[in-house]
């Protein structure tokens, strides 16, 4: 029985121990952390990735993601005020990517889907 359970237990331990590797296992939704919202995108072909959204006037340059130690995985931690924020990723300066995973989505009216991240007020 123990032998049968071992692979299952090992997988759980590996996921728990390797938070930064989570992106290698699948898409990661933006997570609210004490430092801001953590955005992670896995895109092996990207030379650059930026975050554009309702919080930065949809700028394609103001919030770049940094490459991580894992090839093809990009990350940014962005302080955002409480509320609902729409966003998309911009790959290589001009390719708009709908987030693979988000708390919710909304059609943008132009044929794409914006991701939604909700920041709850800490004092609430």
């Amino acid at each position, binding site marked *: *029985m123990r032998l049968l359970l071992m692979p299952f237990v090992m997988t759980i331990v590996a996921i728990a121990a390797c938070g930064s590797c989570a992106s290698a296992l699948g898409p990661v939704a933006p997570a609210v952390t004490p430092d801001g919202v953590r955005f992670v995108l896995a895109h092996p072909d990207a030379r650059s990735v930026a975050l554009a959204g*309702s919080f930065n006037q949809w700028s394609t340059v103001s919030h770049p993601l940094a490459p991580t130690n894992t090839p093809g995985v990009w990350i940014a931690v962005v302080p955002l005020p409480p509320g609902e924020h729409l966003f998309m990723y911009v790959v290589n300066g001009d390719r708009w990517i709908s987030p693979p995973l988000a708390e919710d989505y909304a059609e943008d009216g132009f044929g794409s889907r914006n991701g939604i991240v909700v920041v709850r007020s800490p004092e609430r």
Partner: protein
Amino acid sequence: MRLKTRLRVALLLIGMTFAVPHPSLAQSVDDLRRLADDAAARGLPAAPISNKIREGLAKGVPPQRIELVVRQMTLHLENADRMVREMYPATGRPARDAAVTLLAESFGSGMTFDEVRELNRQSQASGKPPISADDLASAAKGLSFIKEAKLSVADGTGVIVEGMKQGFLSHQILDLGREVKRREGDYRTGRASLRDLRDAIARGDRPEQLFRERRVEPVERPATMRPGTAVERPNRPEAPQRPQPVERPQRPEQRQQPR
């Protein structure tokens, strides 16, 4: 007229229709900015319109297409503004702008005038003090999530109104709708029900309690752990009694061997 000629004329007419620019559609960024200015001059919140224009331009969308989206958005803002002014004439800016923006978003998500009015009617009927414009807008937006999940609007209204009766704050009402939408599969397949949710709220469950037991992401268990497939193990035999230590005779003193 021969068929070939008719086809040529038809193609020419179609071509002319598309070739001639529509005079009412925006041709430039300035035209779009004018739309935002017009909305602001009519007392509508301009921020969502300006943001949508910036979004469209950043995404490389042609101004004509942005204008169509902006006009639709303006229509929702006008309807929301009319409703807020009618129901809450005393609400001034900036509270009105916030309520109008949220209510317009709910209209954009498919909520109707009648559904919002019904929401307002039921919440006023609860005997509590009248709700604010912000409360109503949050309730409408919360209900719009439930409607987006294609669940019963009547049952969803019951859930939202019960939340308001129990004193849920605006952001809690929004989260209530979001949580239901996130679990839409459970509600559609009958694993969860909006009526049960309403009853739980009526019993006094707080927002943080409502979905607590389901917040943990389900982990797929291996087949050997699933109930029904578990292998029955025989009872483990009791451990044998440890024998009492045997008293051993004293070892005789070692004799030195003569060399």
